[in-house]
């Protein structure tokens, strides 16, 4: 059983040399915007992040789903794969309008 998704293809691009032999997890740190403020999806929360190249520049971006209005934000990575820089975001658009998966 091999993990071969394209999400993983992006992941492998990020870390071609990574191996996983039951690592432990350190206490976490928060992802911040370039201005030092927390990256957050706002009211009601339920942030759901994926780190993968959305815009085709071969640098992974942060794609974050949210509960309110069921929206999805694309945080373009202005930095590098391992030193990401997030300055702003755009809502994911589909069918010519902001895409939503309504929570109700």
């Amino acid at each position, binding site marked *: 059983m091999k993990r071969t998704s*394209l999400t993983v293809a992006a*992941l492998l691009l990020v870390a071609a040399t990574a191996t996983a032999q039951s690592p432990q*997890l350190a206490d976490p740190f928060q992802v911040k915007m370039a201005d030092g403020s927390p990256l957050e999806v706002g009211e009601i929360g339920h942030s759901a992040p994926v780190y993968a190249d959305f815009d085709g520049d071969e640098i992974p971006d942060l794609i*974050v*789903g949210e509960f309110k209005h069921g929206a999805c934000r694309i945080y373009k990575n202005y930095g590098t*794969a391992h030193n990401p820089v997030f300055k702003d975001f755009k809502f994911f658009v589909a069918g010519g309008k902001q895409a939503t998966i309504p929570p109700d």
Partner: protein
Amino acid sequence: MGFAPQLVDINGDGLKDIISGSYCGDAPQPEGHTGHIVPVKDENGKPVSEIFAYYRQIDGTYADRVHVAISHIHSACSPVDWDGDGDFDLITAARIVLDKSSGLGLINLMENIGSRTEPRFARPMNLLEGLEIKTAITSAEAFDWDGDGLLDLLAGTEWGDILWFRNEGTAEACRFAEPTVLKEGSKSSKAEKPWGNRLAIFVTDWDGDGVYDIITGDARTEDITEKFLKEEDRPEYEQLKAKVDEYSSKVSALYEGKNYRRMNAKERAELTKAAQKIREEYRPYTTPYYRKFYKTRSHGYVWIFRGIRE
């Protein structure tokens, strides 16, 4: 989650699509879509699965949502070639399982019984069969966490835990161990840990050190009452707050160790009656407390749990 995205070329056309779990248990049938439907229905056209949504990329833009139904609430999905046949299967998780016999949350495999370019998914199969899951699972991903060549399951939970279900089976027949808690969450709404609840997880090597890390999203409602408290109101506030805490402790004790969804009607009625009695007893304190003082702020952050080898 509302929107819980995954970026994946689900239909093998070379373009990355977005698929997502969903929150509600009442998803609309597909309508007005320009992409094709990923059918999550049985041979009679009846929905058989968790909700998930599908945005197909066409020439650099995305088509409108195809939303496919239904049976569990607050679902998440992640793509993986589980059986090594070259197409994408789905690992799904659900926080609330409408089938009461399934316990608290579950992780399913939905095998792609179509093809790489025409995916169709079989009925969900519970990968945690035989394990008693005592917490609600809010996201899951298949990943070989211990590097033994077998896909394990990693999961985020309602209370902010990150769990690892080690695959102790074989390449042909998976079998999952009781979960190892890689990170323990708050276990309550009292925010004992900086990160919140209802974790959505994603595995990647964030810092490029060769050890996989886990990115999570969360949900938390912060009590910000103290920030708005006027000093002249503090004596009244503290008196009410003590009673509200007493009320919370009594209610927690009432539900401790009980699985509401596995109770029969009589047991549920008795429990509800007991809770109502406590509620009435404390209403003179809880009502003014919540009306006059209680203030909250909800948010969802993104956290990096770095993988480390000890």
